[in-house]
């Protein structure tokens, strides 16, 4: 099967971020003084456990960022034609989840549809009853009798497989890196990994035959939608920081170091920006982007590209509106640093301002940058949901937690209640944000030695 790789804008930025992360990790490895706080993180149980959870989310997000278009079987004028639908490596792995759509709602692990339907029986009579699902539990001959046994059986075998895989992996890790055995959080990490693997294994095995988290209004698998939403959350949380960093770092350090009119101008700009209520500023900017995208529909050859540009625009807007906080922190820190003896010594030796900034100031404020980036991440993931609810978030066709909540909020009023879409969106979001918050806490404690605690960060 031939396919056409598609690189969306946000994909490129995601990979750029990963490359940056790897490069800086490689750089930090060879700097003992930079390695020290990371050692402290590695010694923390909470830190390593939350890192494990986060990296699973990142794995899903990265897989979901490798996009491609499948070639259609028929060719036009000898040229291969590609399907308009943009898929990702994650879609390929979760193909069953994606394609097994039901007619409408069905409860988690259900065998029957949520709504009654008129069905023609074999003897020609029309009966109004809950029809069997097309895919969920289709292998069961008699659901009343077999359902419980089948579900528990699958859950248990899946969990067992997951446990076995983790134990083998842990054994291999200890073999390769014997030091891992002595590391303090090893036991906590192993227990968490076993727990996660058991749940994941059970879910994966059940997902081959059931809709583990039910289906939504148009019959899409909620588990699939939740997993697809992870990428949007991660992109908003990370790419926004990428946009924000240059502004905050450059302007904050410059304002603190040069003072005078440079400081006045920069302070003016960030007072203006931060005095506008952020939701309104974001709303205004997103409405503008919507208008532009609407007027230039011919710029995008697939719907995914259009949605992606809107996601990127949202990241840009969030970045432009949220750099002021970090900028203020960095300005304050630079004001303090520039009075230090080593800076004055450098100035006395006639080192150029640019060099002083690059070699002496920026490296000494990086811990503030790192901490605030990690702390902003969870706030951004939560903000996406709110913005999508207000109607100024990501494109309605993009899978995101905000869109899931937005489209599911009226379902609570149904009888019987449709709770699974909302619960899954909130559950996944809680897991991601909680892991990020815990990790941020550990990171802050590890890098804290010089951080001014009285600043609200």
């Amino acid at each position: 099967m031939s396919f056409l790789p598609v690189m969306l804008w946000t994909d490129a930025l995601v990979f750029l971020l990963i490359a940056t992360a790897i490069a800086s990790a490689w750089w930090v490895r060879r700097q003992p003084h930079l390695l020290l706080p990371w050692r402290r993180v590695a010694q923390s149980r909470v830190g390593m456990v939350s890192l494990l959870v986060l990296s699973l989310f990142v794995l899903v997000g990265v897989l979901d960022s490798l996009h491609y278009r499948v070639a259609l079987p028929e060719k036009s004028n000898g040229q291969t034609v590609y399907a308009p639908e943009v898929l990702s490596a994650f879609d390929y792995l979760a193909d069953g989840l994606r394609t097994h759509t039901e007619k409408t709602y069905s409860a988690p692990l259900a065998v029957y549809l949520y709504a009654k339907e008129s069905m023609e029986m074999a003897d020609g009579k029309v009966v109004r009853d809950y029809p069997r699902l097309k895919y969920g539990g289709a292998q069961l001959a008699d659901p009343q009798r077999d359902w419980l046994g089948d579900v528990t059986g699958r859950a248990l075998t899946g969990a067992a497989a997951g446990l076995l895989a983790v134990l083998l992996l842990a054994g291999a890790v200890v073999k390769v890196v014997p030091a891992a055995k002595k590391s303090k959080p090893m036991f906590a990490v192993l227990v968490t990994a076993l727990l996660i693997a058991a749940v994941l294994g059970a879910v994966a095995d059940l997902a081959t035959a059931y809709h583990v988290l039910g289906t939504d209004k148009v019959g899409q698998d909620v588990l699939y939608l939740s997993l697809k939403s992870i990428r949007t959350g991660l992109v908003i949380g990370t790419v926004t920081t990428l946009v924000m960093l240059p502004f905050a770092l450059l302007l904050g350090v410059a304002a603190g170091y040069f003072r005078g009119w440079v400081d006045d101008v920069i302070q003016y700009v960030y007072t203006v920006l931060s005095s506008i209520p952020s939701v309104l500023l974001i709303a205004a900017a997103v409405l503008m982007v919507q208008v532009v995208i609407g007027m230039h529909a011919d710029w995008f050859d697939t719907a995914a590209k259009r949605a992606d540009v809107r996601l990127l625009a949202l990241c840009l807007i969030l970045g432009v509106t949220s750099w002021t906080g970090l900028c203020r922190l960095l300005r304050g820190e630079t004001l303090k640093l520039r009075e230090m003896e080593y800076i004055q010594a450098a100035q006395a030796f006639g080192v150029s301002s640019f060099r002083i900034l690059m070699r002496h100031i920026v490296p000494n404020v990086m811990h503030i940058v790192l901490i605030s980036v990690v702390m902003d991440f969870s706030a951004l993931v939560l903000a996406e949901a709110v913005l999508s609810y207000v109607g100024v978030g990501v494109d309605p066709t993009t899978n995101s937690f905000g869109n899931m909540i937005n489209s599911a909020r009226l379902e609570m009023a149904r009888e019987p209640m449709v709770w699974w879409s909302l619960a899954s969106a909130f559950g996944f979001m809680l897991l991601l944000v909680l892991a990020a918050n815990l990790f941020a806490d550990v990171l802050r404690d590890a890098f804290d030695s010089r951080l001014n605690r009285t600043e609200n960060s």
Partner: protein
Amino acid sequence: MIAYLIRRMLYAIPVLIGVNLLTFALFFVVNTPDDMARVQLGIKRVTPEAIEQWKQRHGYDKPLLYNARAAGMDRFTDTIFFDKSASMFVFDFGYSDDGRSISREIVTRMGPSLSIALPTFLIGLVSYVTFALLMTLFRATALDIVGVTLCVVLMSISGLFYIIGGQFLVSKLWHWVPISGYGGGFDNFRFVLLPIVIGVASGIGASSRWYRTIFLEEIGKDYVRTARAKGVSELGVLFRHVLKNAMIPILTGVVVVIPLLFMGSLLTESFFGIPGLGSYTIDAINAQDFSVVRAMVFLGSVLYIAGLILTDISYTLVDPRVRLS
């Protein structure tokens, strides 16, 4: 101090001009008056004449920033920017797309917004500080660890969940209060109770944890040790010494939001159907009513700057060492 305050207020003028220019650029550079006319008139009736007529009726038939054909000061005053944006400095917000006076809407909607926001703010502040003081009192015990963990979990939950979950539990399952709505008089209590409780609950994680770090910072200082050495009880230390000295960082975060309470809360008001400024803003965003959004942006910035000035004044009230100059 008077001179300082006057200077601060004068500084507000260039900031507000900046705010205005920014929103103006956002609204008009991308979305020209012609586009606005087209959207407002609908697809069917769009003729160049109709567009001109619409622009003339709504005052968009002038140049954006600089009128080259006019003479003298009119070059700057006879423009869309001056008509639509500069008039906001005297709080003349003009009319929304459906023809209503925005100023009057703001005045009538302020009451409902405040009836939710003010109690939420006050009850919230008292309960967050109390909770944080409790955690400080029992610092480094199991109670403190449970409290902090609870805070981290609570702050990781989406604000939407508090609202949806609260509405479901209290209104739908237990039928204690109506799901949404707003009434007049004493009866209104039923409607505002749930939004207030949810508003307080959704902030408890982040705020309590933040106050706890402030208190812990103070409690390590020398004067606390002196007070303990003199035989002051632990509660006395907390309330008479730590709380007072922690006022400055607390005020920094708290006073600035007081004027913004007028703006109400976007989510709470739209979920509970409260006719306040928050739901007004959301409706305007959804209807793409730029004049309303622009008015709210301006109002928000004015209130924010007022909050900054109030913060400075509040410092002098709690700390006699602070002198504004």
